[in-house]
């Protein structure tokens, strides 16, 4: 598999410039630089007022591209939460598991490329 996204953003180093043992990847979790968000055809959108903070979407995301933030939120109905779930659109591939598994249907899949 030739991953074009990652190559675009990476300078191709010469053998003298690589780590002395070039085949080792010494920076852990560095795929984060690789923005797989461009793969999406549909994007999940969370309705923060409908969300019950059950962690289901976060739990089942294989990327992971759902961020669990310590960010207080008060719903229109006046319910207060300490946590907020947001989508990491840089990496979300738009598989839709989160929307499908959400027990309260608080996540909608919206076609990419349309108006926001």
């Amino acid at each position, binding site marked *: 598999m*030739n991953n074009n996204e990652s*190559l675009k953003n990476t300078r191709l180093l*010469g*053998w003298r410039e690589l780590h002395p*043992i070039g*085949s*080792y990847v*010494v920076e852990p979790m560095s795929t984060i630089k690789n923005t797989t968000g461009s793969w999406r055809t549909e994007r999940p959108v969370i309705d923060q007022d409908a969300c019950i903070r059950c962690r289901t979407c976060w739990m089942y995301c294989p990327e992971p591209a759902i961020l669990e933030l310590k960010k207080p939120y008060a719903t229109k109905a006046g319910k207060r939460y300490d946590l907020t779930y947001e989508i990491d659109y840089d990496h979300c591939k738009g598989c839709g598991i989160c929307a499908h598994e959400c027990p309260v249907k608080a996540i909608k899949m919206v076609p990419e490329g349309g108006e926001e």
Partner: protein
Amino acid sequence: MSLTVIKSRIGREIIRDRVAITSNYAAAYAAKDAEVDVVAAYPITPQTPAVEKMAEFIANGELSAEYIPVESEHSALSALIGASAAGARVFTATSSQGLLYMFELLYIASGLRLPIVMGLATRAVSAPISIHGDYQDFAATRDSGWVIMIASSAQEVYDSIIMAYRIAEDNRVLLPVMVSYDGFLMSHTTEPVELYDADTIRGFAPKRLNRPILDSSKPITMGAMAVPEWYYEIKYQLIEAMHNSMGVIREVHDAFNRTFSRNYRLVEGYMLDDADYAVIAYGGIWGNVKRAVNEARKRGIKAGALRLRLFRPFPTDELIEMISDMKTVAVIDRAVSPGAAIEGPVAMEVATALHSRGLSTPVVSVVHGLGQRTVYSRDVAKLIKIINDSQPWDLTKSTMYMGVREYGNEG
């Protein structure tokens, strides 16, 4: 060398003991004295006594190491790749089919730049199955990215393995090292070996861990997948490490000779100074070749001999320096590359080495000793006579197969 020399060396307290052991045992003693952390091995004739001895050392508490009695050679080298990646000093030994079963891992071990040291009791390759010694398994490792040494005596097996750890673990190298020795002819032959004092060995080849390892406090990824944009550069680093290893190997040889009063060279010559012909050999038949040279000299033929201690990296400079004046060189291989332009694998290397330096010395490729057919010194003497009596370019057209029967009952 006389008795008094040996005594004086022991007197200098470098020598811990002088024992009579086989090359298999010498390999095991060396790994023990190098204080390896992990051994993983699978038995195969003729290597078996080497790994039995390792197991015995560990069982008796003479060596504090983990012994993994793996279920195959494939797993032996796999386990050592894991152990070495986790920072352990490791050892195994194998032969023939076992080496071939490891083959995929040979390339991975060097590609992952792991300083694994392995003994190879060389043996013929099936089919037909043969448990006996030749160098076919060894020859197959040519392109694997391992540093490959060849010993000619049990002492040299012991010494080479100690050197191997220092070479392999050198930051400029970080490549696996194979130390090969003849199956049976050496692996099962009892001969004198001087074992060195543990502190001296420790001082000479200290365990170095100045390389990245699998460590949860500093996570790295080993064995990543390289796409065409990256593979070549990473592979080239290995090639460069192999180039660098030549200088390191020379340094280590010099240091070893100084520390242990030896006289190892990458290429060893015998009566070459005024020689017209050189017979090139490697491994356990070296003594037979020297005996043949003595015979030839008695008959007035100016023959000399030369042996290779190193196959990878190939010691081209040392070799050329010693043979550039020869009228003809003959290389005795106990392995074959059927259908090659020159069918003796080392003969091919020698011819290439000469050619790369603009020399056109005729190289006679001789194959003998397949499946441990005895290479008598008289066979080598006969070879020298043939070379002396022939036009060299007549002999280079095809590989000479000595000792093979064309029809039965030839005397």
